């Protein structure tokens, strides 16, 4: 390995700006990464970490700003160019072929001469990497037989074999067991000691404090701060990550919680047979007349929780009670029949049927009961009237109830979904990211309707990645991180800092 150990600046970004339409994902970012250091990049979802790293690895081109590597300006048009310059990224989803052996995965490369056999050369390079870093692979083992940690190691060896000197790890611990993480942490330190530069993207502060030399926090697309780990405290970084709350708490009547509507007990759900569980011993109560928000970064188990309650994902163990009745052999039909309703996250594919009319979409859930169903036939006139009435009541702007759903704007589609789900007077509404992609006015409408539903004695389970939204809307907030409920806060005591601390807290055991 011919890396030049030196403490000089490896990668320097200055004034990097990237816009997507009107949205600025990266706003004049300056970042300095030196050889021989582990640099932690922290930030909430949407803080701009991913965009920035895509710029560094050549997937995106910045609109403004310059990059320099070893003091010479560089710009990458394609990922291959970044890799050739020595910048490699270990993605959360590995780019390995499971049916090939580890050696063959290393040998996979554009072949100059078709009949060349790259296996021997790959074996030699792997031996070199092993001599330099101690990273040992099992060359003749099929990747499908390797554990997640072993696959990650192979991915790292692959990058080193190609001459990567700056390695970016994107949430590397997400799929690892604690033991595997310890090994990876040691490896990062060793790589840095060898003179490589390591960038660690994480939102687990314990990991950052265990391995990093320096940190940079991104918030809202801009650099919120940077510094040495030595002189910093976790509290300081959390404050930087979550920032000050911008949205004031809305004034409204205090909740009057009644009977429990949804009771989840010791729910365990599998994500992948040999990975960590998606949900671990989750207990959750949502009472009638209150909004319970689930706070947590994306992928903490929110989707699995919804799918399990709905009945489209099996649980390993645990129970779900809705309206005092235990839901055995859960199915979506059973969930709705017991008084549940769902505002799904994916509006286009799950919540609405674009090819059907507005009226049909609004009536979808009411077609089997009177008054719309009459002796097995649908009363079309009653259905039309109901659709028109609900469209007016929920302020859906459309040319008529027969307009195709796909022609409506996102806000009006979501209002129609609300009309469909709330008009059946459900006991529990699960709302997943209910205002994603909506403008201010439609957002306000959704918030108001959900609050009204609560005031009428309904229960709402709100799942959102937006901390401000959860804080603004919820009466109680459950913080979900890595499949576990880390704590439940009352609205009055919930601040961004407290929730952020719970979100990033690493439990003693995972």
């Amino acid at each position, binding site marked *: 390995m011919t890396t030049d150990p030196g403490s000089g600046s490896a990668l320097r970004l200055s004034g990097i700006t990237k816009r997507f339409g009107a949205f600025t994902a990266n706003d004049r970012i300056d970042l300095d990464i030196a050889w021989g250091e582990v640099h932690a990049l922290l930030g909430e979802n949407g803080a701009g970490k991913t965009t920035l790293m895509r710029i560094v690895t050549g*997937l995106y081109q910045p609109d403004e700003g310059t990059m320099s590597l070893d003091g010479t300006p560089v710009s990458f048009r394609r990922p291959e160019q970044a890799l050739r310059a020595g910048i490699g990224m270990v993605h959360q989803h590995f*780019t390995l*072929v*499971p049916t090939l052996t580890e050696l063959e995965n290393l040998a996979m490369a*554009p072949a100059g001469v078709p009949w060349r056999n790259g296996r021997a050369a790959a074996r030699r390079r792997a031996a070199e990497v092993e001599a330099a870093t101690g990273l040992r692979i099992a060359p003749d083992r099929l990747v499908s037989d390797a554990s997640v940690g072993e696959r990650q190691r192979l991915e790292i060896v692959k990058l080193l074999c190609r001459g990567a000197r700056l390695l970016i790890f994107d949430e590397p611990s997400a799929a690892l067991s604690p033991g595997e993480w310890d090994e990876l942490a040691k490896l990062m330190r060793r790589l840095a000691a060898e003179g490589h530069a390591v960038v660690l993207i994480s939102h687990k502060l314990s990991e950052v404090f265990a391995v990093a030399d320096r940190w940079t926090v991104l918030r809202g697309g801009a650099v919120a701060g940077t510094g040495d780990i030595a002189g910093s405290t976790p509290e300081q970084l959390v404050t930087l990550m979550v920032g000050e709350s911008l949205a004031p708490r809305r004034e409204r009547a205090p909740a009057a919680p009644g009977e429990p509507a949804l009771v989840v007990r010791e729910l365990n759900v599998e994500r992948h047979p040999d990975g960590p569980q998606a949900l671990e011993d989750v207990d959750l109560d949502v009472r009638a007349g209150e909004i319970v928000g689930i706070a947590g970064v994306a992928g903490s188990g929110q989707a699995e929780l919804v799918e399990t309650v709905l009945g489209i994902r099996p649980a390993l163990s645990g129970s779900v009670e809705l309206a005092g009745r235990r839901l055995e052999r859960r199915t979506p039909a059973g969930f709705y029949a017991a008084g549940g309703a769902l505002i799904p996250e994916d509006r286009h594919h799950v919540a609405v049927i674009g090819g059907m009319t507005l009226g049909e979409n609004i009536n979808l859930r009411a077609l089997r009961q009177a008054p719309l169903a009459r002796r097995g036939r649908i009363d079309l006139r009653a259905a039309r009237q109901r659709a028109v009435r609900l469209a007016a009541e929920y302020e859906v702007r459309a040319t008529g109830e027969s307009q195709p759903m796909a022609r409506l704007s996102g806000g009006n589609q979501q209002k129609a979904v609300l009309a469909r789900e709330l008009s059946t007077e459900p006991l529990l509404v699960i709302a997943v990211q209910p205002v994603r992609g909506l403008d201010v006015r439609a957002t306000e409408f959704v918030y108001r309707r959900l609050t009204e539903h609560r005031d009428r004695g309904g229960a709402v389970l709100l799942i959102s990645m937006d901390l401000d939204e959860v804080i603004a809307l919820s009466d109680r907030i459950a913080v979900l991180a890595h499949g576990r409920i880390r704590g439940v806060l009352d609205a009055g005591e919930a601040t961004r800092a407290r929730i952020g601390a719970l979100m990033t807290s690493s439990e003693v055991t995972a």
Partner: protein
Amino acid sequence: MGVFDIAFLVAALTIAAPILLAATGELISQRAGVMNVGLEGVLLAGAFAGYLTMTRVDSQPLGFLGGIAGGLLLAALMAVLAIEVKVDQIVAGIAIGVLGLGLTTFFDQHFVPEPQTFTPLPRLAVPLLSDLPVVGEVLFHQDLFIYATIVVVVLVGLAMYRTTWGINLAATGESPVAADAAGVSIRGVRWAAVLVSGACAGAAGAYISIGDVGVFREDMTGGRGYLAIAAVLFGAWRLRGLLLAVAIFAVTDAIQLRLQSIASVPGEVWAAAALLVLGALVAARHRQPRRAPKPAELIGAVLLAGLVALAVVRPQLSLPASLWLAMPYVLALVALAAGGAARHRAPSGLTLPYIRSEA
């Protein structure tokens, strides 16, 4: 003279060669993730293009080149549809199959109104080796196409399992994202694979028309393309499995050719079938020795007992010729059903167009 003589083995080899060559090409194409269901049409295109060339220049080497060109043409169309336009591969393949049949029939009537006959490929004896008993006659006294097929299969085996290109090929069909991330051109590998399969099928088609019998008839490939696809599936996308599958199909076909002309079924045919079933049962047991027998195995055991009884009793039994004709295809169906367990070994990216995402 029994059924299984030297002439029978020669016939089996002659039947096997074009299927083997076409199936080898299809294997490469499928390993890259492109399934050409219209292989039958490509074969026909090769058969007719070779024949057409012969009617114009009367030169066998040029005839085979013409056949290869015809196969390449249809394969290129398939590649454009599957790789560039990203059409559903099954639908595109069916279109290619129908197009191959329609075009060759039409052009045959239009360009060659008077059917012509040519001398088939001459048999070449390999010096010394052809003097060996049995083996010499079967293996070393064949036409050039059969030797060429053997060479091509060996070369393909080396390319698939001993070169970087083979690794890239497997990666492209299995996990295009990973191959792309490694800098392998998905488009390049897939185009190359589909064109190789077209050239193989074109040459095989030309052998069926001008190499073996020296004439062209409408739909003369008679389902050999489908047999080749079945062989790829039955062989679980491995070259060795493919060889075994083609051998079984060819032997069955050769037997049925023989039996069409014999009044009653000779005992050794029953014995051979019994041996085949026994082999399959033993192979199934060998893979998972300790478990309860599956229904399929019970059926196999009953079948075995019946066949053994027939072989011992030797009844004066005869079946209509059309039933014998259907035998290789029936066997292909059985093979596909039995190969259900092997289906998980199909390349994961098979029939899926690759669209690079920025995630």
